[in-house]
């Protein structure tokens, strides 16, 4: 479904991605792991069309989307849940959801999806008229996911969904991700520092280091990989 082939992205004179290749299959959950400044965010921004790669290609659903602009990427069916949730703090929860559907014109379908979100994420209904900035971090994460789903994506990219949330809440979020994946056949790319958590739901994972994929394997193999255990899983 999503395929990156030897992608090189530069920020001015900084070579941020040094030939990244990865794939996310249809209905698959894949995690992209790595520490700070390893290129995780740049990979995401390259997929979303926020930065243009200097070489290499991004293919989505059989189409080359390299260098397309962000609105077209959303149209193609990729929606991100940004790091730290990034609510529109002074818009109501409902207005936030409506913004998620910005590229859609099917009023009836949007209304139906709002109801659907109310089912999956009850907070989007119970706090519909409240300014999103006044919600708790966990509630905001729910709204952020609902908002991204309002675009009816085929691929959801989640950037650090566990950041700043309690372990219990992280579990809730990840359970929801699994359920969405099963129910809707949604492909999900989870970009995470929390490797344990991310690998517990993913089928495969990639480890990025200074802009390069250093390990690519199944989730089980990664969890048992001694190099991984030492560097990312906190097992000596």
């Amino acid at each position, binding site marked *: 479904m999503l395929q990156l082939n030897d992608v090189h992205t530069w920020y001015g004179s900084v070579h941020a991605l040094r030939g990244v290749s990865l794939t996310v299959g249809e209905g698959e959950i894949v995690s992209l792991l790595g520490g700070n400044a390893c290129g995780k965010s740049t990979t995401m921004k390259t997929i*979303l069309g*926020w930065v243009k790669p200097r070489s290499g290609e991004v293919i989505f659903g059989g189409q080359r989307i390299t260098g397309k*602009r*962000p*609105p077209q*990427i*959303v*149209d193609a069916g990729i*929606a*991100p849940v*940004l790091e*730290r949730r*990034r*609510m*529109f*703090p*002074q*818009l109501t929860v409902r*207005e936030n959801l*409506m*913004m*998620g559907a*910005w*590229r859609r014109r099917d009023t009836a379908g949007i209304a139906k999806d709002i109801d659907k979100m109310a089912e999956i994420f009850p907070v989007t209904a119970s706090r519909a008229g409240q300014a999103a*900035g006044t919600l708790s971090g966990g509630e905001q994460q729910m709204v952020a996911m609902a*908002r*991204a789903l309002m*675009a009816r994506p085929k691929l959801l990219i989640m950037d650090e969904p566990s950041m700043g949330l309690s372990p219990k809440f992280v579990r809730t979020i990840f359970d929801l991700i699994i359920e969405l994946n099963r129910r809707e056949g949604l492909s999900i790319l989870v970009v995470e520092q929390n490797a344990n958590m991310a690998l517990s739901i993913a089928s495969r994972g990639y480890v990025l280091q200074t802009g390069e994929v250093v390990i690519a394997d199944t989730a089980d193999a990664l969890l048992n990989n001694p190099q991984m255990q030492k560097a990312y899983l906190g097992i000596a």
Partner: protein
Amino acid sequence: MFEQLINGLTQGSIYALLALGFTIIFGVLRMVTFAHGEVFMVGAYSGFVVFTHLQDSLVLAIVAAVVTTFLLGALMEIVAFRRLRDAPHFSSLLVTIGFSVVLTQLALLIFGAEVEAIPMRQIEGLAFSEIRIGEVYVSYLQLSVLGVAILIMAATFLFFKYSRLGTAIRATAQDHEAAMAMGVDVNRIFTVTFAFGSMMGGIAGVLIGFYYNLFYPTMGVMLGLKAFSAAVIGGLASMPGAIVAGLMIGVVEVFSVDFVNSSFRHLIAFVFMFAILLIRPQGLFGSGQLRGARGD
């Protein structure tokens, strides 16, 4: 007394419209424009030209100002500010000053330095027919100015609160990256916003041009300065603040003429604004922090 109040509110509604333009542009683009007074002047002249050469209709004059200044705003944003989005703030500030000089010079070239006025026979219908409200008589023109200003302000509020595009503009103001993630074309939003804010200035220009029936290339200088001050007093990023501050300054100015020589009216207006800022440095509706600033 009541008459003076109406005069003050009319004058103030113009300041409010102009200040609202500043506020909208600043609230979304995080940029102060010093060409706003000159956009105002362009709006006034567009109305003047259409009224004197095409058809003497105030509505048509306003439409002309709307179209001209909207396009002018869009043009300025696309030509200059889009390229300077990541540049330091003073760069775009300098560019706006450059625009103000260019626009003033253009007006000087086209219309000359002398003050123009609409011939009496064309405007007397508007300026001298009055209606009675209680004890006082108010001219149609004054009523139109006040009415149009209020209408535009109300429409602006409804637009931002309820329309799809208005919501997207607010969203972009609060977090433009998150807006981009939703597939919002952020560049287009910035252009539309700048055009929209400029248009508010243009409408203010045509209204005041007709109200005083005076048109000259530097007519926007003092007004632009006052409206900018009103926007600051209102809290810079607060729309209600801009309106309240604009109306207050208009009323204070008009009433001050009762007590001091009228040539001091600008001074009084600025002293008044200075006093407010001494008491509330963050502005009337400012929260100390920019309204619409990023939430995290």
